[in-house]
């Protein structure tokens, strides 16, 4: 079985390289000489050297986007977060979890899973809308990755800051119900449609309490820039968690719901509707939709929570600001992951009632208290 697979792969490779070589030799090389090498030399080499030199420079935008606060760092981080989540859930349930990949306690399990997913067949179900079905994982990753541009680990390593950063985060997040609905509808499966509609109700309902819960904070800061939020916490000398506990609670719960994590994992409820809106996805698409985008989103949301309520990169000096940010973010992520091991699942009508009733009221009460506070400050 395995031997024939390898043989098939070699055959496919040979076939592919043949079909690549034919057009290159027949058309590419003559065209290259006929046009007197016009394109490649003036552009490609300087571009590559500039790219390399910018990748060495931590202050450049290229470095930030590609390496440190950006994509590469977060993907590797996400691989370890998946491992930590599996080990944590296993310990709570008296299992051992991943054990064999890597020398110690299965540290390389996520990478092994990635290679496994890469070598698996991509199945597009009959009757599915092929283009939308295959592009949904990519769009989902792009939506999750765009969030990383807004989350600031420290003022030095910051991709993007503007007076509307917070709104930008919310607007990018509001793409995700759309992506989920596209994926669910294009699969042509009853379970995915049920899951997709549940996700639509859930994400749409929890967006409002989340947005309203940060209103009080915007009122205190007077700006929607995340750097300003941390600066104000620095000036006040205390995190907004203490000044706005109701907002922090509301934001945390809505965050867990927006991430579709366990007390609120109604759209992908494993025991009711197979895997919810991801049911028909296999191989690498499943990896991107199940292990890629949600974990990147988890990091982005936890980073936003840290920035808004825990003081972001602020902390006593011997530890550098970036490390403070990542320590706090890791604690938030760990708390969200621990929920998974200990809580059952809500019903969808309970979820909607909690979101529109309790959480929205909490957010509005928080807003009213903040207005009172601001009024008192202005009067004094």
């Amino acid at each position, binding site marked *: 079985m395995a031997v024939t697979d390898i043989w098939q792969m070699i055959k496919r490779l040979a076939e592919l390289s043949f079909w690549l070589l034919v057009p290159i030799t027949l058309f590419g090389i003559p065209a290259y000489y006929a046009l007197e090498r016009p394109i490649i030399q003036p552009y490609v080499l300087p571009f590559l050297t500039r790219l390399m030199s910018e990748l060495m420079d931590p202050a450049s935008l290229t470095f930030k986007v590609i390496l440190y606060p950006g994509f590469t760092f977060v993907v590797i981080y996400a691989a370890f977060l998946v491992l930590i989540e599996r080990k944590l859930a296993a310990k709570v349930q008296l299992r051992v979890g991943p054990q064999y990949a890597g020398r110690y306690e299965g540290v390389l399990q996520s990478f092994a899973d990635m290679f496994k997913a890469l070598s698996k067949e991509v199945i597009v179900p009959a009757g599915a809308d092929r283009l939308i079905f295959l592009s949904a994982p990519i769009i989902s990753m792009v939506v999750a990755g765009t969030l990383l541009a807004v989350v600031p680990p420290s003022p030095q390593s910051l991709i993007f800051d503007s007076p509307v950063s917070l709104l930008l985060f919310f607007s990018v997040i509001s793409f995700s119900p759309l992506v989920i609905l596209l994926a669910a509808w294009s699969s042509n499966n009853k379970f995915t449609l049920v899951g997709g509609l549940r996700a639509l109700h859930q994400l749409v309902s929890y967006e409002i309490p989340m947005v309203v819960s940060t209103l009080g904070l*915007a009122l205190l800061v007077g700006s929607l820039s995340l750097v300003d939020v941390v600066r104000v916490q620095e000036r006040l000398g205390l995190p907004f968690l203490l000044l706005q506990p109701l907002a922090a609670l509301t934001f945390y719960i809505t965050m867990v719901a927006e991430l579709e994590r366990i007390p609120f994992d109604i759209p992908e409820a494993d025991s009711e509707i197979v895997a919810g809106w991801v049911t028909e996805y296999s191989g*690498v698409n499943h990896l991107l939709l199940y292990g890629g985008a949600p974990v990147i989103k988890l990091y982005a949301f936890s980073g936003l929570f840290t920035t808004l309520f825990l003081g972001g990169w602020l902390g006593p000096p011997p530890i550098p600001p970036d490390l403070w940010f990542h320590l706090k973010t890791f604690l938030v992520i760990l708390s969200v992951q621990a929920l998974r091991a200990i809580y059952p699942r809500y019903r969808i009508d309970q979820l909607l009632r909690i979101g529109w009733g309790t959480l929205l009221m909490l957010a509005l009460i928080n807003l009213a208290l903040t207005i009172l506070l601001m009024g008192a400050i202005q009067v004094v």
Partner: protein
Amino acid sequence: MALDFTPVLLMAGFVFVAVLPLILIPAIFAPRRPTPIKLAPFECGQPPSGTARVHLLMQYYPYLLLYVVLDVISIFLFAWAVSFSLLPAQASLPLVAGFILVLLPPLGYTLLMARRRELW
């Protein structure tokens, strides 16, 4: 005030470029042996019947209406919150507080209606 969103677009573009190989590698190397049964939609082992269809949950329709109303309002409240320190408090506070107070009774009524299952 013009804002430069290039870094955000760069981030999105780079994620797109970085994900492409993950899509292309299985397209080239992974086996492809489709069978009619493998391609059938998953329905827990039953032979699939018809295309996918689902009831739109009418019970939750009030919540979606609430969303349509409150989403716009919350963005307006953001605009007010950011410019709060620039305005005199006596001018804007009663307005917004009254606004939210006016908002509450219909909100409560809608929630009450959304609870009444026999209505739907």
